[in-house]
């Protein structure tokens, strides 16, 4: 029983990592209606910027804010320069663009900062949280920030004009244009916000997994899985999905005899696919009705 509770707690702590990344995934999906494979790499790059600033002696919170600003601007710049020209190209061509962006960012970061792992500071400290050694104050802080972000995003998409406009631009671009929404800039704004959320995720994840150019490879797979499980249109779903994936993965690794340990990830993915087969729009996603 103790092992069970410990694994659940460890799963929640790891799940916070996935949830954070899943939020960024949902953000970009809301803006452009598909997934950005380079998102993890962009987050990794932002985290390196924060690290570099701190190496130069910038205090943590200033480095944090500067990185957010940089990521926001960087996200918009990438959209304007690389993906706006592809707006009329087929979706699959855009996906190829994401893969190209992935290769570029990863390779540039590798050359600039090389592949040895870097220690990344945390503002929350890493002592045991509420007496439990399984969740550190950093992980608790991370869960807190994730939930905070979730509430902000929910308010943004549900109640602000610009948030609503963004959703409209992503789901029904033509109708959105008819009511006077500048859809092109909505997409750019979405890129900027997704990039900034990605930066927050990267900065929170780095103290746990250590900073290096391939840091986000695995995280992004889980982030996608969590977002899809929760429903790509729902920030709440993404966060819940993240925690579910974290906990389920640990339990599968611990309690499925024989192959559980070796096949943690495949089992987790198989479960997600099963959920999708039963509920194609994810746990919290809005069902999509198609018409001819």
């Amino acid at each position, binding site marked *: 029983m*103790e092992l069970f509770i410990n*694994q659940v707690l*460890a799963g929640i702590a790891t799940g916070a990592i996935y949830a954070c990344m899943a939020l960024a995934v949902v953000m970009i999906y809301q803006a452009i209606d598909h997934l950005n494979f380079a998102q993890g790499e962009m987050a990794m790059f932002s985290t390196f910027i924060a690290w570099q600033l701190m190496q130069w002696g910038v205090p943590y919170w200033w480095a944090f804010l500067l990185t957010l600003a940089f990521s926001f601007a960087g996200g918009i710049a990438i959209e304007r320069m690389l993906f706006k020209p592809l707006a009329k190209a087929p979706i699959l061509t855009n996906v190829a663009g994401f893969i190209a962006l992935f290769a570029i960012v990863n390779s540039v970061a590798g050359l600039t900062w*090389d592949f*040895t792992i870097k*220690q990344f500071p945390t503002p929350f400290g890493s002592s045991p949280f509420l007496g439990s050694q399984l969740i*550190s104050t950093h992980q608790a802080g991370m869960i807190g920030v994730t939930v905070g972000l979730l509430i902000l995003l929910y308010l943004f998409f549900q109640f602000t004009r610009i948030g609503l406009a963004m959703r409209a631009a992503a789901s029904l671009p033509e109708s959105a244009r008819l009511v006077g929404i500048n859809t092109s800039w909505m997409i750019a704004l979405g890129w900027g916000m997704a990039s900034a959320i990605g930066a927050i995720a990267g900065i929170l994840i780095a103290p746990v997994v250590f900073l290096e150019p391939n840091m986000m490879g*695995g995280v992004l797979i889980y982030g996608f899985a969590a977002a899809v499980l929760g429903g790509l249109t729902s920030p709440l779903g993404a966060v819940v999905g993240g925690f579910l994936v974290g906990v389920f*993965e640990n339990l599968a*690794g611990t309690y499925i005899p024989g192959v559980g340990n070796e096949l943690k990830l495949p089992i987790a993915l198989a479960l997600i696919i099963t959920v999708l087969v039963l509920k194609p729009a994810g746990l919290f996603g809005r069902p999509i009705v198609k018409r001819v």
Partner: protein
Amino acid sequence: MSVLNLRLGAFAAALALLPATSSGALAQKKYDTGASDTEIKIGNIMPYSGPASAYGVIGKTEEAYFRKINAEGGINGRKINFISYDDAYSPPKTVEQARKLVESDEVLLVFNSLGTPPNTAIQKYLNTKKVPQLFVATGATKWNDPKEFPWTMGWQPNYQSESAIYAKYILKNHPNAKVGILYQNDDYGKDYLKGFKDGLGAKAASMIVLEESYEVSQPTIDSHIVKLKSSGADVFFNITTPKFAAQAIKKNSEIGWKPLHFLNNVSASIGSVMKPAGFENGQDIISSQYFKDPTDAQWKNDAAMKAWNEFLDKYYPEANRADASVMYAYIVSQGLVHVLKSCGDDLTRANVMKQAASIKDLELSGLLPGVKVNTSATDFAPLSQLQLIRFKGENWERFGEILSGDVGG
């Protein structure tokens, strides 16, 4: 000044070689494809891109080292032409690149290609073609097999002998230990695991209480550490690459698990593992080494370390000196230079293998005191000695004698 000294040194070495080679080889120069009066073509394959790109730095350091050799006059007057290709750690690509090196660039030999799966993919091809596959950059045990593969030779102490050393240590000092193991689920991790179990022998089944494996795609290994702690193990064998090693060391301390911790040599680096993990978390960890950790302060004034730093300043200034791979590449490059020098003017592939298989007590700059390179016609494992070390304060403390744990292939 130093350059002059080195040149003189090279000259003296060449002179010393004269009597040995003058009888046969000097009279008539013999060459195979890839060697001539002016150059020696060396092929190399590295993962400059893809999941193992962290090791690309080995190829870059080697390239820099051969530039240094060429600037200092080359090897017996011949320049090294180092051709290095990227295989992204994908065996099919390795085959393509190896064939390109052999059939299109026509290299004399393939040197220090990286990774067990990529090297396995090209081993049969190179042996059929009779092209030396020299000093492969992997610690798998199977490279020491001169009977079956006379054109393939390993380099570093193999994983199995290393873990056999830990097993012996545990049997001797902690015969009643309960051992928990975390290993990477690939050829490297399984090789270590096998050596460890063989080393424990009959007691393996009763002593090992839990084996956990992880995949490199996993972001964290927290769950495994939690499970290992609850298994009640009091000895922890940590078979992980630097990122996961640092995570494990940190997590152990966070959840208050304090077993006797054995860390594989792959991650025994202060700069890239112990420091990021936090010195206070890594106290008393036991590992082993065969070359000097450049980030260990005890070697600060060491002559070899100074030479290494001078080489990097001049030929590879952007290198990260905390990266153990840079030191690794520096040493193995010296090994190749030694072999090529002793070939004299007989630069045939057969002679390369012959010279590589007759190294006696060679000391290379950067190896730990007492560690020497030895090969013979039946021993294709150049380095097989290790020194046990223990982490104290901010340094590795050596203890015990130099150990040799040769496990045959």
